[in-house]
C-alpha cells in the first residue's frame, strides 16, 4: 500500500511541473498584457513597470525563476493587478472562503445524495423512489447559474431570510445559499449513481445468501450491500470534491464571496499572470491530490486494484 502511494506521488510531481510550464506558455501567448487598458501606457512608464516585475527578462529565465521561487521559497510572486498583494496573500484570503462552502457543499451533497439513493433503491418503484428520481433529475437540469439567481429572488428579495451575497467572515447566513447552489447538481448525481449501483448489488447472489440465512434487512444493507454499492460513488466523489472547491466560479461570481473562483476568472481576463498561474497550480495540485485519495480509497475497498 505504501509503495502504491509513493508510486502515485512520484507521478504527481512531474505532472505538476508540466502543468506549470504549459500554463506559463499559454498565458504568455494569449494576446494582451496585465497592463492593457483603455488608456495606453506611455513607453517609458511601461518600461518601468516591466523592469519592476522582471518582465523584461527572457521568457525562459522568467519561467525558471518562477519555478525556483515556488520550490525554494514557496513564493508565487506579486500580483500585477493588485499591487498591494502577493499571490500567496490572495490565495490565503480567497481559498479558505471557497474551501468553507466547498466542504459544506460536499458534506451536504454526499449525505443527502447517498441517503436519497439508498432509500430509493430499497423502496424500489415506490413513491419514495419516484420522488428521489424526480428530485434528482429536476436538480440536475437546473444549472447553478440559474439556481443561484432563483435562490436570491426567493430567499433574499421575497422572504428576506438570507443575504443575497457577500461573505461577512463566513457568517452562517451568508454560507447557506452558496452551499445550496453548489451542492444541488452534485447530490442529484450522487443519488442517481448510488441508487442504480445499490439496485445492482441488491440483486446479486451474496445479498440473496445473506437474506436467506436470516440476516435482518438493515444489517444486509449496511454490512454487505453498502460497501460495494459505493464503489462507483467514490470514483465520482474525487472529481466532485475538486469541483466543489475549485469549480465554484459561478457561485463566487454570483454571490461575490471573495472566493478563489472569482479571482481565477478576473485574473485570467485581466492577464494577471502570476495570480492565474498561482491559482492554476493550487487547483492542479488539489486535483492531483483528490485523485490520489480516491485511488487509495479504491485500493482499500477493492484489493484487486492494488496489483
Amino acid at each position, binding site marked *: 500500500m505504501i509503495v502504491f502511494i509513493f508510486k502515485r506521488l512520484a507521478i504527481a510531481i512531474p505532472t505538476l511541473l508540466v502543468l506549470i510550464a504549459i500554463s506559463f506558455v499559454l498565458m504568455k501567448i494569449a*494576446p*494582451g*498584457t496585465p*497592463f*492593457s*487598458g*483603455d*488608456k*495606453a*501606457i*506611455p*513607453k*517609458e*512608464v511601461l518600461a*518601468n*513597470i516591466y*523592469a*519592476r516585475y522582471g518582465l523584461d527578462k527572457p521568457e525562459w529565465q522568467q519561467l525558471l525563476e518562477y519555478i525556483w521561487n515556488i520550490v525554494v521559497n514557496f513564493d508565487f510572486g*506579486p500580483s500585477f*493587478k*493588485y*499591487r*498591494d*498583494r502577493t499571490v500567496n496573500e*490572495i490565495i490565503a*484570503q*480567497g481559498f479558505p472562503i471557497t474551501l468553507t462552502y466547498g466542504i459544506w457543499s460536499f458534506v451536504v451533497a454526499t449525505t443527502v445524495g447517498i441517503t436519497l439513493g439508498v432509500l430509493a433503491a430499497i423502496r424500489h418503484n415506490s413513491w419514495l423512489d419516484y420522488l428521489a428520481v424526480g428530485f434528482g433529475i429536476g436538480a440536475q437540469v437546473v444549472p447553478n447559474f440559474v439556481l443561484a*439567481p432563483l435562490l*436570491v*429572488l426567493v430567499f*433574499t*428579495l421575497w422572504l*428576506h431570510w438570507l*443575504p*443575497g*451575497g*457577500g*461573505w461577512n467572515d463566513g457568517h452562517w447566513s451568508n454560507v447557506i445559499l452558496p452551499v445550496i447552489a453548489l451542492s444541488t447538481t452534485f447530490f442529484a448525481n450522487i443519488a442517481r449513481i448510488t441508487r442504480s449501483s445499490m439496485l445492482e448489488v441488491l440483486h446479486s447472489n451474496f445479498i440473496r445468501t445473506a437474506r436467506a440465512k436470516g440476516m435482518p434487512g438493515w444489517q444486509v444493507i449496511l454490512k454487505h450491500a453498502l460497501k460495494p454499492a459505493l464503489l462507483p460513488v467514490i470514483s465520482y466523489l474525487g472529481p466532485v470534491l475538486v469541483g466543489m472547491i475549485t469549480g465554484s466560479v459561478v457561485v*463566487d*461570481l*454570483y454571490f*461575490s*464571496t*471573495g*472566493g478563489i473562483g*472569482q*479571482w481565477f476568472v*478576473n485574473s485570467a*481576463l*485581466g*492577464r494577471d499572470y502570476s495570480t492565474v498561474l498561482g491559482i492554476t497550480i493550487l487547483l492542479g495540485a488539489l486535483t492531483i491530490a483528490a485523485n490520489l485519495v480516491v485511488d487509495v480509497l479504491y485500493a482499500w475497498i477493492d484489493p484487486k486494484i492494488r496489483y
Partner: protein
Amino acid sequence: MKLNAIFRATAVAALLGATALSTAVYAAEVPAGTKLAATQVFKYRVLDNIRALDPQLAEDVDTAYVVNQLFEGLYNEDAQGNPVPGAAESYTANADFTVYTFKLRDAKWSNGDPVTAGDFVYGWQRAVDPALASTYAYYLGLVNVVNADDIVAGKLPLTDLGIKAIDDKTLEVSLKAPTPWFVKTLAHSTLFAAHKATIDKFGADWTKPENIVSNGSYILTENSPGERVVVKRNPNYWDNAKTVIDEVQFLTINSEDQGLTRWRAGEVDQTDVPAGQYPALKAELPDQTFSVPQFCTYYFSVNMTDSAPDALKKKEVRQALNLAIDRDVIVNNVLQGGQVPAYSFTNPNTSGFQMPEIPAASMTQADRDAKAKELVAAAGYGPDNPITLDYIYNTSEAHKKIATVVGQMWKEKLGVTLNLADMEFAILSDMRHEQNYQLARNAWCGDYNEASTFLSLHDSKSEQNDSGWANADVDKLLADAKVAADPNPMYKQIEAIAAEEVPIMPVYFYSKVFMQKPTIKGWPYNNVEQIWYAKDMYITE
C-alpha cells in the same frame, strides 16, 4: 465673439475667487428639521476591481471612489465639479499660470501627524518614481508639471520635479506651460499627499487596514477584495465635526442584475441599472432611478494608417459611414438610458468648452443618408463594387447591439458589409493601440475637466491616438491651445478638422444610470466626473 472676454473673466474670477473660496464650507449640508437616520451607513455597489488603495497607484474608477474617501488632495470638487479647497486653504497663481502657490490648512493625518507641504512633495515625486512604476505616472506630465516626463523616463532625479515645499504650510508648483485649468486637475488621486514614514516602514503593505495612514475624511477598517471594503470616519479629519455619514461599505456585486435584486432587497443603497432596463425602472420608481451626464464619449476608431483597407483610406467613404450612423436610433431605441447623440468628440459637459458647430449635427438623418450615398458613389463604390469592413469590439451585450444596428444601417443605406468580431477587452485594447484593425469600438473618459483631456488624443504623438491619425495642423493647434489665453478657437478648429477627416466616428455621450434609495441625500448628480465624497452626504430616516 465675446468668448475671449468671457473666458478671461472666468479665469480672473477663479483667481480672485480663491480667497473667497477659502472661507466657504464644503461638507454635508443638512437642512434644519431634517430627520437623520440613526445609523449613517452608506452601502455602495462596486465591481470586483478594488485594487491597491494607494493614491499614486489607483487607476480605475471604483478604486478611485474608495481612495477619494480615504485621502484628500489640495482641492476637492463640489457637486458641480468645481474645485473647492481640500487640504489646501487657498492658492495664488502668477500672471501666466505657470507657478501656483498653495496655502495648506491645519490638517492631520489619521495618526495625528500634521499634513505638510512636504507630504505633497513626497506624494507627487512618488507618482513619477520609476521604481514605483505607477500606470498613471504620465498624469503629471499631462497636467504640465515641470520635468515630470523626464523623471518618468529616468533622465532626471525625483528632486527635479516642479514641486517645492516653501515651508510646512506653503507649496509651490511649477508648470512647463500656462495652465489656467491646473486647479481642476487636483482632485485626481495621483496628485494626493502620501505619508512617507508609513510607506517606508511597511512598503507595499502600507495600504493594509492595520498599517494605513491617510488624510481623508474616512479611514480604512476592512479590505476584503472581491467582497467588501469598509471605511469609517476619521476623527482626525479637519472637518470631521461636519461629517454625518459614519461608515461607507463598498460591496462587490459582479452582476448588474444581482445588484438590482439586492438593491430592491435593501442590501445596497446605490447600484447601476442593468443595460436596457432604465425605461421600465424609471416608470416604476421615478424618484429612485437616475440618469445623469457622464464625462465620457463612445466612438468608433478608424484605422488611419497604411494598414487600413483601401476603402477607409478614402475620406469620402469615412465621411459617408459617419453620416449614415443614425445616432438617434442608437440612443433612443438601443440604449434607452438618457445618452446624448455625439457628432464631435469633446464631451459637452467639459467646463469652459464651447461646443463646435459640426454641419452633420444640424442635418436631418434623411439628409445625412442622402449625402452619404452621394459620397460613397463619388468614391467609386456601389452595388458592383461593394465595401466590406471589419469591426472589433469587446464582448458585451450593449456593444454587440450597437455594432449590429450600425452594420444594418450601413448595409441598408450604403451596401456596406460589416463583419463583427468580439473579443476580450485586453485583446481589443492591444489591437487598437497597435492599429491592428479596420474599425474598432472605443470610448474615452476625461481625466480632468478641460477639453484637452479629450482633444489631446488627436495629437499624432499621443500614446492614446488609436487611429494613428497624424495631422500637422491639429498638432500645431494643440500646441497653440496650450499657451493660449482662450483655447476655444483652436479646439473648434480641431473638432472641425476631425469631422472632415473622420479619424473617429463619435456615437454618443455617456450617461450614468443608477438606482439610489430616497434616503440618500447630497449626492453630486451634476458632477460629470462622478467624483463624490461621503463626507458631503447624509442619510435621512
